[in-house]
């Protein structure tokens, strides 16, 4: 283990950037949850030693360049179609660990059909759904997941249910499908939440060996630029406004252990 001497005390490395994460500097805004989620995902892959047996599918959205940061085999999918692309990858290469990484504009808006049918078919993949309640990449427009009363650039007076409808809780929706095996909602706003997310991702990769169905992890994340806040304010806003609608916790867990 690497050691170094600081103030005459010999210390060992207890935490460093995962090896599977490339040296490329991320283009995400300061404080964006995407970076943390990338890091935790790569940490799990490092810990399990499955770097050469994992295939990821990148979405369209802020995380469109995910393949620049993850040193694994990646496939870019058309907007919203990461679930369908991941299905193809998994069917051709059934012994690989396959995951799709999608935002709320990708998975819950343009790709709702693909998402529901992928889960309903019970494809043995992991779907990571990053929910920040806004279209971050295009300038903070309203997303299907935007909460009621949320001010975005297309709802400047707040989202109104009478005119635009209600927030789409797609995680609860897919949990009802028989093809879903493990459905959970996590977050990355504190260190404890990050640890729980890591455990959930690790379990999902292990469940892929059982070939029982789709694992679906929603990650409630922030968008400081889209919400027009500092990262710390964004995390406070997330706890105060998003958690009542999107409560953290397991929604569907496998019966047998």
């Amino acid at each position, binding site marked *: 283990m690497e050691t*170094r001497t*600081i*103030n005459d*005390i*010999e*210390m*060992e*490395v*207890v*935490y*460093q*950037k*995962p090896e599977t*994460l490339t040296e490329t*500097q*991320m283009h*995400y*805004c*300061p*404080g*964006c*949850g*995407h*970076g*943390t989620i990338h*890091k935790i995902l790569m940490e799990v892959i490092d810990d399990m030693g499955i770097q050469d047996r994992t295939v990821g599918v990148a979405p369209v959205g802020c995380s469109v360049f995910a393949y620049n940061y993850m040193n694994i085999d990646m496939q870019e999918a058309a907007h919203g179609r990461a679930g369908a692309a991941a299905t193809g990858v998994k069917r051709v290469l059934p012994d690989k660990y396959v995951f799709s990484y999608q935002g709320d504009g990708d998975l819950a808006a343009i790709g709702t059909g693909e998402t529901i049918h992928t889960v309903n078919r019970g494809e043995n993949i992991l779907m990571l759904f990053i929910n920040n309640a806004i279209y971050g990449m295009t300038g903070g427009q309203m997303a299907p997941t935007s909460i009621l009363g949320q001010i975005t650039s297309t709802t400047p007076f707040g989202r109104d249910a009478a005119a635009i409808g209600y927030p789409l809780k797609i995680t609860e929706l897919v949990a009802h499908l028989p093809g879903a095996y493990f459905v959970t909602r996590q977050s*990355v*706003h*504190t*260190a404890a939440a*990050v*640890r729980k997310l890591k455990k959930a991702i690790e379990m999902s990769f292990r469940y892929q060996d059982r070939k029982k169905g789709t694992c679906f992890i929603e990650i409630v994340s922030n968008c*400081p630029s889209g919400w027009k806040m*500092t*990262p*710390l304010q964004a*995390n406070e806003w997330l706890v105060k406004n998003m958690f009542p609608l999107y409560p953290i916790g397991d929604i569907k867990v496998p019966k047998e252990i």
Partner: protein
Amino acid sequence: MIRGSVVVATDVCKGCELCIAACPQDTLALSPQINRRGYRYAVMVQDNCTGCINCALVCPDSAITVYRQPKVTKHALSPQAAAEKEN
């Protein structure tokens, strides 16, 4: 107390302050200087780090490497006893 230390990759840090909020010891703060991309970066302002890795876990840019003193267990062998055991 177990002593720790963090090393921040100053050119990678974007000054989002999430690590500062996550630190239970108030060890970190933003630097007065800026890095080459124009962000103020996180630095240690107190020498009371315990190496709990909370800051590194929440860092979106993986800019933080955490070091910690090796844990000394109760039953740790003295250097003499360890040498004897090896022989």
